[in-house]
């Protein structure tokens, strides 16, 4: 695969990238405590004694989390572990009151699985997953001298105990673009199946990137570094590129890459060493004596399977098959669950209104891909927040189909329909846009245009086919764009031959 971005080091080294994603599960309450999962509260306004590790508390697993983990496992075609074990990961940090994080180590809840990625102009690739495990999030440390003074930090435990699924990929990506594509695909899956809201700004989808370089042609993996908590797709890609450049410099100088945790600074576009890596033994993992194994029965997995929503790649394939859409168009339409559902609802509504079956899906995809997405972008609006109903777009398409509205008039109505909502028939009537199909009126306009444009008429008769477009334009102008263009064309040709 040839990456779109070119780097000088790429003729000597191949990048090997594995990603760890921490995603918040979409629950009401925390993983082991009944405190609410909320964002944007004042510090320590969403905590429970369990989150504070007060003496005598015991963790109790949130039942919903089990279904969400199973759903993820099924979506990526991984194995749902019938018996997984919660382990303590021990380290000291002020935002971790217990002195350990409850995680899973040797026996994670999901084993294996894979995610498909597609880069433009390349064959789709399969990125395998190592595992996915459940763990609790830590609180937040706030280092703000203005609030805490220069020798203190603040701790907010609202986030402590929020359920996380940590999803670990195999080191199978070889460019920052592939890493970006993987993250987008993974986030899309999580959102489709309702496992996570995946809002990166709220920290619901965070990424650590493990990066190493190896000489082209060799198989031995180089020493890797880990870029922690890079929180946008663009920054993950930039951090990987920056880290590859740094490692190539070290290797070119005959040095060794040292295993370390790196921080990426978006302002400088560079990575720097945060701390040398503690090896995994230093966390002294051991099974949490407060929690017995998580046993998942086959019946429960089957029950979740029966209720699985359609996955992005399934919907992508179905849209191509059912609606004769190109892979590209189907890809955009299924890029978010909301857009795909909207498209499909419009097609169904058009069907109910009896529009032409042969052109229906194409007409709807044109309106959605060309007009709707442009208007949403111009107005900086999300589809979920736009008042337009699928029924209204179907009704608009129907009016065009029936010749009651020209495409031009329909496009004039559409932005209001998207941003304000409403009924196209009423809007058409109120704005006097109904197409003129009265042949008397059109005939009159055609006669006048022929009379007023002898030059264009002459050149059409001499065989200049383009002149007809000019004459049509004149007729449309005379009828304020409301005449049916097909009817106008037919009449013009009839009168001129």
């Amino acid at each position, binding site marked *: 695969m040839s990456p779109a971005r070119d780097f000088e080091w790429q003729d000597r080294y191949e990048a090997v990238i594995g990603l760890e994603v921490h995603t918040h599960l979409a629950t*009401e*309450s925390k993983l082991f405590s*009944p*405190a*609410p*999962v909320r964002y944007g509260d*004042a*510090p*320590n*306004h*969403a*905590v*429970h*004694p369990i989150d*504070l590790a007060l003496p005598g508390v015991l963790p*109790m*697993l*949130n*039942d*919903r*989390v*089990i279904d969400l983990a199973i759903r993820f496992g099924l979506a990526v075609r991984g194995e749902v572990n019938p018996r997984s*074990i*919660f382990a303590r990961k*021990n*380290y*000291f*940090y*002020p*935002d*971790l009151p217990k002195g350990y*994080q409850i995680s899973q180590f040797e026996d994670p809840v999901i084993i294996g699985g894979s995610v498909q990625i597609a880069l433009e102009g390349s064959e789709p690739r399969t990125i395998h997953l190592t595992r996915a495990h459940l763990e609790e999030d*830590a*609180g*937040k*440390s706030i*280092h703000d001298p203005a*609030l*805490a003074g*220069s*020798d*203190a*930090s*603040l*701790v*907010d*435990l609202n986030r402590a105990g929020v359920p996380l699924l940590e999803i670990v990929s195999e080191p199978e990506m070889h460019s920052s673009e592939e890493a970006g594509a993987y993250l987008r695909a993974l986030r899309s899956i999580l959102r489709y199946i309702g496992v996570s809201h995946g809002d990166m700004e709220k920290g619901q989808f965070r990424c650590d990137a493990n990066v190493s370089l190896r000489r082209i042609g060799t198989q031995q993996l180089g020493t890797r570094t880990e870029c*922690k*908590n890079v929180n946008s797709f663009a920054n993950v890609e930039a951090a990987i590129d920056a880290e590859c450049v740094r490692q190539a410099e070290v290797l070119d100088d005959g040095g060794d890459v040292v295993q370390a945790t790196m*921080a990426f600074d978006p302002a400088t576009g560079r990575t720097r060493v*945060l*701390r040398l890596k503690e090896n995994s033994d230093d966390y*002294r993992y051991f*099974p949490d*004596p407060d*929690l*017995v*194994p*998580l*046993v998942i029965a086959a019946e429960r997995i089957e029950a979740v399977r029966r209720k699985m929503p359609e996955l992005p790649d399934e919907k992508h394939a179905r849209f191509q098959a059912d609606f004769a859409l190109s892979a590209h168009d189907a890809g955009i339409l299924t890029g978010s669950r909301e857009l795909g559902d909207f498209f499909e609802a419009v097609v169904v509504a058009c069907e109910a209104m009896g529009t032409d079956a042969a052109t229906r899906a194409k007409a709807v995809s044109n309106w959605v891909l060309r007009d709707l997405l442009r208007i949403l972008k111009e107005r900086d609006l999300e589809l979920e927040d736009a008042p337009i109903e699928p029924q209204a777009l179907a009704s608009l398409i129907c009016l065009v189909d029936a010749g009651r509205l020209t495409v031009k008039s329909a496009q004039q109505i559409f932005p209001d329909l998207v941003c304000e909502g409403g009924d196209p028939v009423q809007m058409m009537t109120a704005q006097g846009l109904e197409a003129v199909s009265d042949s008397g009126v059109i005939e009159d306009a055609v006669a006048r245009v022929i009379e007023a444009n002898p030059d264009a008429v002459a050149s059409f008769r001499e065989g200049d086919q383009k002149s007809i477009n000019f004459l049509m334009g004149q007729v449309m102008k005379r009828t304020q764009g409301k005449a049916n263009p097909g009817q106008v064309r037919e009449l013009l040709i009839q009168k001129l031959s």
Partner: protein
Amino acid sequence: MSRISRQEVDQIAQLARLSLSDDEAAAMERDLERILEYVAALETLDTEGVEPTAHALQLATPVRPDEACEPMDPELALSNAPEAAGTAFVVPKVIDEEGR
């Protein structure tokens, strides 16, 4: 045969944020040596085909429904804190490390 070195004792103490005097470290080394000796006796058993025991109770994890409770009163949550600012805990400054 020594099963644990003084260096390992120091490393474990550091991970546990324990500051040991020389005498304490030496005592700890002796204690850990005896514990490891005891555990080593288990290693002589044939455990081929025996599933590792993560917990002595043969139970599956009890669960609770995903329902959020009223959170704690923040004042109560902070009532044991040596220092607070607003409703945040105040701790000694954390140097050049990020949360995991």
